[in-house]
């Protein structure tokens, strides 16, 4: 336990081992563990008893799933583009940088979990809970950015092309992640509705839905 806490701290500080060979597995493990823990707490909004326990379980599975599957879907094309621009030799280090940023995201999330629980204890408003979690995720993404930029600084110093690729990664990840988050809803679970692992209308498209909402506002 203490060793893992130490590791988590080192990820945030950007210690050297996180960029060395063999760092990938512990980084991924950290990311998955912290994301699972935050997910479980995220799902406690509607309570813990009875069938609400399923929401806790569902959220605990969904948050790490969101991080891992999004990364897995974006990696093949990122790999090929890295190869094409001639940065294949750095790819292992790139992979560790990406894993470190995911771990950073999950660690910051978990560190904010008590605040989320306090929020849940103070307000029973479902919409506010969603917005608050949005804020928490945005904060955690900021933390992940810090970790990622630091890990990439070394790579960029070696070859400036990494800067463009970092932007490409962020673009890809956000593009896929947004849809992934949309598909995996609900993360919190509306207490007024029965527990459902996935929304009946989950097979929608985040971009089309949001675009339609904007379009309806503009065209009105």
């Amino acid at each position, binding site marked *: 336990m203490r060793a893992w806490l130490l590791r988590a701290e080192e990820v945030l500080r950007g210690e050297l081992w996180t960029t060395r060979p063999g760092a990938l597995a512990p980084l991924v493990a950290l990311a998955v563990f912290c994301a699972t823990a935050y997910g479980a707490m995220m799902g406690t909004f509607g309570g813990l008893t009875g069938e609400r326990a399923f929401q806790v379980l569902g959220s605990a599975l969904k948050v790490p799933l969101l991080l891992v599957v999004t990364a*897995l*879907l*974006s990696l*093949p*094309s990122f*790999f*090929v*583009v890295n*190869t*094409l*621009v*001639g*940065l*294949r030799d750095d790819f292992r280090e790139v992979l560790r940088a990406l894993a470190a940023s995911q771990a950073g995201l999950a660690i910051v999330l978990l560190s904010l979990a008590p605040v989320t629980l306090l929020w849940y204890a103070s307000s029973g408003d479902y919409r506010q809970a969603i917005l608050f979690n949005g804020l928490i995720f945005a904060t955690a993404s900021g933390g992940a950015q810090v970790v990622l930029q630091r890990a990439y600084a070394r790579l960029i110093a070696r070859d*400036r092309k990494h800067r463009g690729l970092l932007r490409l990664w962020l673009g*890809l990840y956000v*593009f*896929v992640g947004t*849809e*992934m988050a949309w*598909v995996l809803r609900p993360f919190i679970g509306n207490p007024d509705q029965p527990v459902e692992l996935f929304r009946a209308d*989950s*097979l*929608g*498209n985040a*971009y*089309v839905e949001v*675009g*339609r909402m*904007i*379009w309806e506002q503009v065209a009105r």
Partner: protein
Amino acid sequence: MIRWFADLDRLLRGEATRPDALRRGTIEVSVPGLLFVSIVLAAVYGVCMGSYALFREGGPSGTQLVASAVKVPALFYLTLVVTFPSLYVSNALVGSRLGPIALLRLVVAAIAVMVAVLASLGPIVAFFSVMTTSYRFVLLLNVVVCAVSGGLGLRFLLNTLQRLSMAELHTGGPVEVEPIDESAAGRPAPSAIEPVKGQVMTRPVRLIFRCWVFLFGVVGAQMAWVLRPFVGDPNQPFTWFRPRQSNFFEAVWHSLLNLFG
């Protein structure tokens, strides 16, 4: 078979098209191998594309999946067949020494690069295809993905052509040396899609090659239109081909306008 994939890997890394590897005036890769690999990868992308039809509203269409898996490789190689004669003629006109075999190798290599990028984007396309009900969104996503991979493949083609003409220069001939590209300076081994420092193509040659790339892109897009449907409109029954009407660019424009409608 692993050797063929290794050939593709050498292409992507830029090892097969390093200026010193092109001394003999051709890319040293096995054409049948690359053909095989690119057909497999194109079929993989076709499956990703066709997966929309499998999960769409109003019943799955497995035939569409099969059709897409067949059509995507066909798209690339039919485009090659349509454009190759004019490519070769213009190439000979501008006085390049590339023979038909070397040229064919080059274009097949470019297609392999395109298809590799395409297949690597396949998981994302499949994810959106399965998860989304909006036909137009999937359509436009596919257009963007194909444009990206086509663009990268054509950049590879253009830069390899430049390197090949540099390799030819060792046999002599008048050249117009251009200023050194700053971004490529200081790197001994340029990647597969970067221009080599010191452009050494004469202007007309470069213009002809640019026209080539443009022709290849436009023919490819229209070929895709002729071979449609790839994704499969959920409101229409499955057909192998649609009637002759309209063109690619008009259709993309309409999809864009109606995305949120």
